């Protein structure tokens, strides 16, 4: 991949008092690739993703989008740059219906500045039908919907607005098998469309199924960045747990390339 990366994070640091939650991490993401972001809870991956999504301001470091340095002060800045995030909690307002959630913070308005609910409903119906043709409960508050339907709304919200980079935090953790398959399918489709995806996941199966590359974090540092072909599940587990590859990894990979 010789193109410009969609996103580069260079020497990102985030300190909380004396704690280095993210310690000099660099990461890039190219169009059409899925990068798995792995690590223990508290390894700093959520923190890193929150920085990229604008929900957290880094202590130091630089973010570049299409080669241009940018500064994200809040989530709106990141969204304007084409970086969308699907949070593990889905970040939905339970009392509002699907269209209101889909357009929350970016409401469509009529000429008089009123909310254009009719158009928002129409657009929501379109994008939701693309994800799940069975989705009919557009007027219900999202609290009354199933986990899968809520996930569909969160995804729809992330892909509706000219998205270039998608951050997915544990997108399948709360889903049943058929819904997980749906999300996996969607990820493949988005990848084919040239969107770059950062996939935070604990599910090794998903990671090997979907990712081109993996990066592993341990205690705030980046301890490994590998193409998916050059590592095994055990290699990744070793990186996650011990922060280093198994002793025989170099030998094995030399063998492979010989």
């Amino acid at each position, binding site marked *: 991949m010789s193109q410009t990366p969609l996103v580069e994070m260079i020497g990102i640091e985030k300190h909380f008092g004396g704690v280095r939650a993210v310690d000099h991490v660099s990461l890039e993401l190219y169009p059409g690739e899925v990068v798995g972001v792995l690590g223990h809870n508290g390894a700093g991956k959520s923190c890193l993703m929150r920085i990229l999504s604008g929900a957290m301001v880094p202590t130091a470091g630089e973010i570049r989008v299409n080669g241009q340095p940018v500064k994200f002060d809040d989530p709106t800045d990141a969204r304007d740059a084409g970086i969308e995030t699907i949070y593990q909690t*889905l970040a939905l307002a339970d009392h*509002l219906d699907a269209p209101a959630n889909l357009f*929350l*913070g970016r409401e469509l*308005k009529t000429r008089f500045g009123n909310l254009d609910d009719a158009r928002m409903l129409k657009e929501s119906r379109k994008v939701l039908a693309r*994800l799940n043709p069975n989705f009919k*409960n557009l007027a219900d508050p999202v609290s009354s919907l199933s986990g899968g*339907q809520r996930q569909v709304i969160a995804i729809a919200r992330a892909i509706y607005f000219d998205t270039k980079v998608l951050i997915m935090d544990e997108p399948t953790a709360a889903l049943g098998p058929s819904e997980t398959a*749906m999300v996996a399918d969607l990820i493949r*489709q988005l990848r084919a469309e040239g969107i770059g995806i950062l996939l935070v996941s604990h599910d090794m199966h998903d990671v090997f199924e979907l990712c081109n590359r993996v990066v592993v974090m341990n205690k705030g540092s980046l301890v490994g960045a590998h193409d998916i072909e050059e590592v095994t599940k055990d290699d990744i587990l070793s990186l996650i747990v011990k922060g280093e590859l198994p002793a025989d990894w170099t030998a094995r990979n030399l063998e492979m390339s010989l």
Partner: protein
Amino acid sequence: MSQAIKAETGRAARPLAGLIPDPGKIHRLSALLTLLLLIVGFSLASPAFLSVSNSLTVLLQTSVIGLLGIGMTMVIITGGIDLSVGSVLALSGVGTAMAVKAGVPVGPAMGLGVAIGAFCGAINGLVVTKARIPPFVATLGMMLMARGLALQLTGAAPISQLGEAFGRLGNGALFRVVEMQPNGFPKVIFPGVPYPAILLLIVAAGAACLLRYRQVGRHIYATGSNEEAARLSGVRVDRTKIYAYVMSGALAGLAGNVLMSRLVTAQPSEGVMYELDAIAAAVIGGASLSGGVGTVSGTMIGAFIIGILRNGLNMAGVSAFIQQIVIGAVVIAAVWIDQLRNRR
């Protein structure tokens, strides 16, 4: 889109979904029914209850609770509470009266009163969002400060002799028909629609439209529903909350002007415990103290339930102490129903 995406995510087993109204509507419907029952009950107990003059009295009394309740509803939907409205009402009324005494015409003076209320609301909002003080504590502080300031400014004495123009907002009426009798006394043929009631109607309609059709209204609901989600979605949560507190303060100021104008006297000790009536009106009308839920129409029903309870119990000769007990019980019952609704 590929085949696998046709995953089953629909909850198919909801055949009656279209027939059963949502819980918010049920709540408002039951409140409306309660209101009608109260009206029927009181008119049976006291024939004077349904008379034109008493109906107008109820309308007047309710307009103050209603104005406070509308602002309170906005704050409650954001997940907050505003305990300062009773005191802000007094401070605003006193401010208006002092301006009138200083020679300011009544119109601008009342504008000043509303602005004082809005200013108090802005401080509430800033303390809640920027200093991160819980709304209960922040507005409790404002409740004491505004009341203290009103008493300090007036030396705890009412300001009277404010002139006829000052009393027009509270005592005037649209379409009043008066006929001079041969004996020289005027006879009121139709007492007209009181200005406070018209004001309440306009404010209620405006607030309902704001919550329903404007972006800030949508954001008020989103903030109360899930503050973190709203923030991550790009809603300016702090600004939204400040907006709600400013509205509550401004409407308390307006209510203060209406009340003081009605009395043609500015009473620094007026409006004690009114915040509780306003909260009760909102909660009876279906607003949830945990945020995200509430409507202006519901609060209007709630305000009329309280206004009619007060008036009807008065007419039936029930003591003010018993009235407190009854209204307290009604508020608890309303919150209990709200809890049941959320538990299901």
